[in-house]
Structures are given as C-alpha cells and as structure tokens.
C-alpha cells in the first residue's frame, strides 16, 4: 500500500509545470469559495443578530395564531407567572413578557398612530437593546409606574421633551376605549428608523390596566445570542408549554421575520449556483490534465499490464494520483482562504456603499467573515467530489487497454 502511494506521489511530479498549474486552479477555486462562503455566513450572522438583538428576540411564546393574526384578543393568560416558570425550567434568564397594542398618541400639537409595547421593566433589557439605548432621561422604572419611553424621531415629530405628557388613545382587549395620559421619562434611539418613528414602550402592568388585559400579554420573548440553538430551545419550550396550555406555541425568529430568513436563503442559494458553475469550469480543465496524464502513459501502462498488474490496480493508481493532487491543492487553497477570512475577522471588511446596503438590514457597515466548519470545508469538499468524478473517466479508460497494443503506442 505504502509503495502505491509513493508511486502515485512520484507520478504527479513527473510533469511539474502541469501539476502546479492544475493545483493552482484547484487551490484558487478553494480559496475563493472558502473566502466568499465565510463572508456570506458572517453577513448572515450579522443579519440574524441585527434582527433578533434589537427587539424581536430569538424565540417568542405566543398564542397559536397570533403570529399571522396579531389581534389584541389572542393573548397568553397569566403571562408573567408563565415567564417565571420558563426562566426556572430552562435556566435561561433572558426572557421577558410583552404586550403589543396600537394607539393614537397625541401631544399638544401633533397626533401619530404608533405601536404601544407593554414591557416587563426589570427583564426587558435582557431581550432587547432598546433599554440600553436611552439617549436622554431614563428607562421605565417599575411594572406599574405611570411613564413611557418613546423613539427619538417620534419625540421630534410630536415636538415633546422629557416630562411632557402624552395622551394614548386606542381600543382595549374587550373592545372598550383604552386611554391614558403618561409623561415621557426617556427617549431612545435604536438606529432602526422604523422603531424610532413608530414605537412607544410603557410598563406591562400599566399596559394591562389601560387596555383591559388583566394579567394577559401577547408574547414571552426569549433571547439567546447563539442562533444555532434555536431548535433545541424551541423544543424545550414546547415541552414546557404543551402540558400546560396547548394553545401556546414557541415561534422562532425565522417565523417572526420570514423576510430575513428567506433573503438569506435566496442569497445563499444564488451564491452556490455561482460556486457550482465555477467548480464545473475548474473541473473541466482538471479533467483534461488527468486525461492527458493517462494517455501519455499508455506505453507504460501496457508494460505494467504485461508484468501482471491488474487494470483495476492501475485505475486505483490513477485515482490515487488525482486524490493526492487535489487534496494537496485543496489544503493549500483552504488555508489561504481561512487566512484571508482571519485577516478580515480581525480588521473587518468594508467597501464603498456598504453602509447604505447594510442599513437595509439593520447591519453595521463592516462585515466580519465567519470561520467555521461549514465555511472552511463545504466548498473544498464539493471541489473534491467534482474532481474525483472527473478523474474517474480516465481511470476507467485503462480497463480497455490491451497490453500488446498499448506497448506499441508511442
């Protein structure tokens, strides 16, 4: 066995230039794909954390049907005690209860329709960055306090400052009129134009009182920074929820914001469409090399056959050569790709115009590539499969060789 590998290794270096050129093609492909897959995956991480970290959380517990039909009436009963129970049973502390409503909010001069969010003041900062983004004043103090925080653009549009009172007018859970007058205690700036312009937050108990919700709420929001844990946490939650109340479900960020998930899928599949074409082009050129290296050795193979080698053994030899050459080149290419990724991981990658495009997804303007098994190996392994299939063709040709004719071949 050992001899065979050594044989194969020497054979590939019989024509140095050709081997190096072939390796360059494979290595170039590997490095390029490792780099761009790393970049894509890194970008997706940013998109996902951008969409979960700001406000929506990784998972939300909701009443079944609330996701598609966010009606006031679709509520979770005794939400705060349920949240407490989930915190206890999952040992995850980053969980907070929210109630969502819609109301007209008026200052002396202006009126806007906004989303009103009732939050658990003590826990909200664990699941959302908004409590940490208060630019003036302070965040909500207690679950039953009479106060509100509003977005910066909304404050500007309403022409209000800290301490000014705003009137909230909407309809409650039972269809009654919901009205409250609350002072502004804080102004936040999240960076998301949408949130800054159209959201106010008030304490959960104040919300429940105003909107006739008793102890109900609309969502229990859970945040975890590792989005890969989505499924395990979700099934754990389902395990807790099912025996208690079969009308409650855990929904992941990918269901809450399907747009983000699908634009990631769209980008990833169009990326792979391009990579496969690239790999196919490279494979064609490699196939030529393999084919030539077999054809030019017809005489030699003839002699080997005459000496008693089986065609299968020679075919194996050819496949081994292909394997060594490809793996060698892939290793170098992959290492180059990972190093480039590592460089940009440390230094960040940005280009002109990145800012505008990133803003569309609530992302920072620098991308950091992801270095993971998927980003580092998926591309090279695909190339390996393609090249080995390409090498199969010349290897199989050997079976047709007739020793005597082959030896006469020039």
């Amino acid at each position, binding site marked *: 066995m050992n001899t065979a590998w050594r044989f194969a290794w020497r054979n590939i270096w019989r024509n140095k230039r050709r081997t190096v*050129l072939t390796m*360059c093609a494979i290595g170039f492909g590997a490095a390029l794909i490792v780099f761009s897959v790393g970049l894509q995956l890194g970008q997706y991480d940013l998109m996902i954390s951008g969409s979960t970290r700001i406000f929506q959380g990784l998972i939300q517990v909701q009443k079944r049907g609330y996701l598609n039909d966010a009606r006031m009436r679709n509520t979770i009963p005794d939400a705060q005690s349920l949240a407490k129970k989930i915190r206890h049973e999952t040992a995850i502390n980053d969980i907070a209860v929210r109630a969502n409503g819609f109301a007209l909010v008026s200052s*002396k001069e202006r009126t806007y329709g906004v989303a009103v969010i009732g939050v658990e003041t003590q826990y909200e900062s664990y699941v959302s960055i908004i409590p940490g983004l208060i630019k003036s004043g302070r965040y909500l103090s207690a679950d039953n306090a009479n106060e509100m925080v509003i977005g910066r653009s909304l404050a500007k549009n309403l022409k209000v400052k800290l301490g000014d009172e705003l009137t909230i007018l909407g309809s409650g859970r039972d269809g009654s009129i919901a009205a409250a007058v609350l002072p502004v205690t804080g102004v936040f700036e999240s960076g998301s134009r949408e949130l800054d312009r159209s959201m106010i937050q008030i304490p959960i108990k104040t919300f429940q009182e105003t909107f006739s919700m008793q102890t109900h709420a609309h969502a229990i929001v859970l945040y975890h920074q590792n989005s890969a844990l989505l499924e395990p946490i979700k099934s754990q939650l389902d395990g807790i929820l099912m025996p208690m109340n079969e009308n409650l479900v855990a929904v992941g960020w990918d269901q809450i914001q399907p747009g983000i998930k699908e634009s990631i899928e769209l980008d990833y599949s169009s990326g792979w469409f391009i990579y496969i*074409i690239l790999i196919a*082009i490279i494979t*064609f*050129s490699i196939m030529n090399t393999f084919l030539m290296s077999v054809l030019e050795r017809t005489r030699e193979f003839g002699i080997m056959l005459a000496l008693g080698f089986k065609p299968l053994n020679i075919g194996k030899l050819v496949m081994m050569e292909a394997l060594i050459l490809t793996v060698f080149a892939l290793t170098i290419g992959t290492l180059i790709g990972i190093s480039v990724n590592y460089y940009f991981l440390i230094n960040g990658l940005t280009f002109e115009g990145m800012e505008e495009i990133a803003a*569309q997804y609530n992302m920072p303007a620098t991308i950091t590539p992801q270095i993971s098994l998927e980003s580092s190996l998926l591309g090279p392994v695909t190339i390996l499969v393609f090249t080995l299939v390409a090498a199969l063709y010349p290897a199989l040709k050997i079976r047709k060789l007739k020793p005597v004719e082959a030896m006469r071949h020039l």
Partner: protein
Amino acid sequence: MINSIRLIFALSWRNLWRNKRRTLIILFAIILGVWAMIVTAAFMRGMVFQMLEDTVDNLAGHVQIHHPQYLDDPVIDNSFNPQSAAVSKLLQDPRIALSSTRIRLAAVIVSERESSGITMLGIDPAQESKVSFIGRSVVEGRFLDSTSDNGIVIGKALADKLQTRLGKRIVLMSQDINNEIADRGFRIVGIFDAPLDPTEKSFIFIAKDNAEKMLGLKNKASEIVLRLHNTDMVNSLVNDYAQFDKNIDVMSWLKAEPYLEMMIELMDSSMFIWYLIVFLAMAFGIINTLLMAVFERTREFGLFQALGQKPGFILFQVWLEAVLMIIVGLVIGNILSWLSVLATGDGIDVSVFARGMEMLNMSNIIPFVITFDDLIVANLTVAILGMLTGLYPAWRASRLVPAHAITRI
C-alpha cells in the same frame, strides 16, 4: 503574405482538432464560463431593473416635488401650494409625461373590529391611475371615479387585517390643519391587489376633495410625482429645478432609496470582478491544455524550425490556436446564453423566496436583461485576457531548440 496567413489559419485550425476530446473538454469550460458570465449579468441587471420598475410604479414616480421639510416630517403643516406660479411653470416642462398631485399623510383606519395605522392618499383618480400601479390593480369593486367620489379603495391584505370587505363602512382619522383629530366615514368601493404585501397594508386611496374637506386643507398638496418621457432625463430635470423655488424641493426618486442607488453604482464593478474570477478559473485550463498540445508536438516544431520556419511563425501559429479556441467558445457561449434567456420568457419565478424578495421591495418574477454594454465587457474580458493567456504556450513553443527538439521522442 495572404497565402502564408491562410496557411497559418489552416494549420492552427487543423491542429486544434487533432485531439478532439481534449479540445472539446476545454471548449466546454470556456462555453460554460461565457454562458455563466452573461446569464449572471443578465440576472443581476434584471433584478435591479425590476427593483427600479417596482419602485417607480409603487407611487414613487421618477421625480417628486415636496415641501422642503416634508421628507423629514411628513405632516400636514409641511404641505405646499400646487397651483403656485413656480409649480405651474415647472409642470409645463416638456420632459414631463404625467403628473399626479397628492395629499399624503399618516392616518388611522378603523373598522368595526380592528384599527391600523396607514398612509392615506388623497388623489385625483384620473391623474393617479396613469402614474402608479393603482389604476390597474383594483380587483374587486372599482377605482375612485372623480375628485369628489365618496368611496375609499384599500388593499386586500388590509381588508383581511381589518376583517372588513367591499361595501362596508370604515372610519379614517388623521390630524387636521388645526392639529385636531379629524375623522370621516367612507364606504369601501374597491379593493386593490399589489405585488407586495406591505403596499396593500399601508396605503389607502380617497378622492382629493374629500381629503381636503376632512382635513380643512385648501389648495395644498403633500407631493406631486412626475413621470418623465425617459428615465435618462431624471437627473437633468432635477438639476434644472434644484434651486428653483424655496417653497418646494424637487428630488429624483433615487434619492429616496439610497440602497437602490448604491446597488446600481456597485453593479458594474462587482460584475467585472465576477468576469475576472470566471476567466481565471478558465485560464488555468487553457494554459495547461495548450502547453500539453505544444509539448507533445515538440518533435514537429523542431522539424519545422530545422526546415527553416521562423520562431515567429510558430509563435503565431500556436497563439492562433488559442485565439480560435476562444473565439469558438465565445460564439457558442453567447448563442447559448441568448437562447437560455429567451427560454425563460418573462423571467424566472423566485416566489419560493417571496418574503425575502419583499424585504428588498421586489416582486417575484425577475426578468433577464441583457444589455449591450454587458455583452461587450464580458466578451472583451474573455477575448483580451484569453489572447494574453495564449501567448505563454506560444512563446514556449517558439523557444524550442531545433536540434534538441527533433531528437526528443
């Protein structure tokens, strides 16, 4: 001279086909590369083209006129007089094909069961139906028929959300000119269907006179959108009227979509990088194949030289093999990509990613758009770089020493 060129052509062409399989394999690689270049470019162009079309169609128009503060703070106070001398003069510009004057403000719509925040558009139905999608998007009932029509037209998704339907009454609330909350009841006379859900959910249409009555406005508008005869005129028109009148702001619709503007700017360079990458992937194969073709003919080249052929002749002959191969690849690649674009017809359906497309403000059919410029750049990239690549094996062939070459097996 002509004879010797014909000789070289014949020699190169025949040499190319001496090993059919090898040439065909590398030709496949070139064709695939050229096809991928052109089709990807056409797809990207089509995507941006569709985004632009959708945006223009989706209320933005080509040029927008606002009160200078309206975009920062779209409230009733920031409206302007659409019949002022300045505006009237602007609207006379021959480059303008169509225009629509709108009252466009935030409002709340309340049905018997639910309420929702929306943007209300008080419009002149005759003008508006030509400028934006709404004229051909009403799927149930009818569109508004005059500036004093008492009906309201809402989107399908909004109707579902409000649990209401055609013929029902809804109440619209917004802030009037005195900063009081004004409300008015309307009967739903039409339901529209838009490619994007958010459009259906966030816009409602009422007649201009009713909007004016409800809000206490007189001779005021929030915006005028213009459609020009030709998209290329947008920048010149906007520049001409940039400092025209201090009460109005004239803006290209692209300014409202910095994301789109950037996409367009980045497109040319990213496409060129893509071409280079594809070419590099092909180049290794081309060089390798030609080098092999040269080395297996070492004896032959040696003989040529011994018989008095100049190295330049050999160089040109081998180089021509590369060029012929690339030209054949280009021609077939172009034809194939043209055929595959034809085969997709109106475009490809990406509705699997519907909600992802929605995030990009795009509908689900992406047309392929082949532009002349893209074709030229793709073909020139391959041709020029390919010819340069072919020089290396040709140079190797011409540098053989005859005496050594002949004796080699």
